[in-house]
C-alpha cells in the first residue's frame, strides 16, 4: 500500500486480529455483543441511524 495521498486517520489505523475481523465483518456468533463499540461493519455500513462509537 502506498502512503501517498493517504489520510492521517489511515496512517494511524490499526490492523485487526482475525477474531476482531470476524466481529466487524458480521460474523462472530456468540461473541457479537462483545463488540464493545459499533464499527460500521462490512455488511452493515452506517448512515442515518447507526452511529459508531469507536472514533
Amino acid at each position, binding site marked *: 500500500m502506498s502512503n501517498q495521498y493517504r489520510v492521517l486517520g489511515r496512517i494511524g489505523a490499526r490492523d485487526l486480529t482475525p477474531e476482531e475481523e470476524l466481529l466487524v465483518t458480521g460474523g462472530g456468533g456468540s461473541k457479537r455483543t462483545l463488540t464493545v463499540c*459499533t464499527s460500521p461493519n462490512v455488511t452493515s455500513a452506517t448512515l442515518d441511524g447507526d452511529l459508531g462509537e469507536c472514533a
Partner: protein
Amino acid sequence: MKIVVLAHANDNHTAPIKWAAEQAGFKVACWGGLSWKEQQQASASFNGGDSLTLGPHSVDPGDVVWVRRPQPSEINPKVSESDKAFAEGEYRWFYYALVYLIEALPVRVVNKYSASRFINNKSVQLLLARKCGMHVPETLMSNSPAEVRRFLQQSSNRTICKAFFPHVWKKDSGGVAVTETFEIKVNDLPSDEVLTYAPAIYQQMVVKKFDVRMVVLGTTVYSYALHNPKGALDWRQDAGQGLVEVEIIDTPPEVEQAMLAFAKAGGITFGSADFAIDNEGKWWFLEINEQGQFLWLDQFNPKVNMQQKFLAFLTLPEGAPRQQIEERQSIFPSMSDYDKTGLHEQLEPEVHAGAGFISTEP
C-alpha cells in the same frame, strides 16, 4: 404497552433484549427500517385519527419506542436508473418524516431521533460537557494545517488524534484496518496538504489510571471501571480480545449530577459515556454514544446486570428513580440466561444495503 424497537430483530443487542422482554410477558415489535420489502414498508395517515404503521406493527399510544439501530432506507432495485436518485431522495425524506413523527406521537421514545442527531456530534458533546461541569480535554477539530500545527506546538501535554466517525478499510489482499485513536507529535505531522485530506480531532491526551464506561438510564447513571493490563491507549483494543476487567464502581456525586445535566441539555435519557480517570482521580469526559453497546458489560462481569436494568428502565414510566429500576430488574432474565439458550448461535449476520463507511484498498 408494547416495546417497538427500530432495529432488525437480529441486531446483537435487540435479539437478547427482545427475548428477555418477552420472557417477562412484554410484547416486542422490531422494525428494521424503511425498505421496499413488505415487512419494512410503512404508512403514516392523518385522517382524524392519526396512525403510524411500521411493517406489520402499529405504533399505539402508550408504547415505548427504542430507537436502537434504524437502518438506511433501501429502494427497490428494479427502479429505473433514471429514477434512482429521485426514489432515494423520496425514501430518505419519508424516513425522516417517520422518525420525527414518532416524537410527536403519545409514546415514550428512547432516545428521540432529533436528540440523537444533536448529541452525536462530538463538538456538541464537548461543549455541553464542559458547561455542565465536567472536565474536558483541550481539543481542536480542524482541517486547517496552520491550526493543527499551532495546537500541537502550544500544547504542554501529549496529544492524540482521532476520527469523527469509525471507518473500515478492507484490503484486497485480505485483512481489515479500522480507525483508532493514536498519539501524535508535532514532528510526526505529515505535509500540510495531507492534513486537508480529512478533518480530524486533535486532543490533549489524558494520562489515565483507568477508563470508565458509564451507562445513563434516565434519572441515574451506572459506572464501570475498565482495567486493561496492557494499558492500550484505547481500551477497546484490549476489550476486543477479552483482556479488560469490568469493575462496578460508584460515580462521584458531582460527576453524576453533571452527566444528568448533560443528558438533559442534550435531550437524551439513555447513553453510554466514556471517561478517563487520571492519577489524581479526576474524571475526564471523552465522549458519549446515545445508542452505544452495553450488553458486553454483562458478558465481562455478570454482576452488572445491564440487560435487566435497561429493560426495567425501558418499561417504567419516564423519570423513574434508580430504586424503582433496581426493584424491577429481577422480573427480567439476565444476559447469561440468554446466552444459555443458545439462541445467539442462530442469529443470522445482519445484511443491509450501503457501504458509505467502508473503503477497499489495493
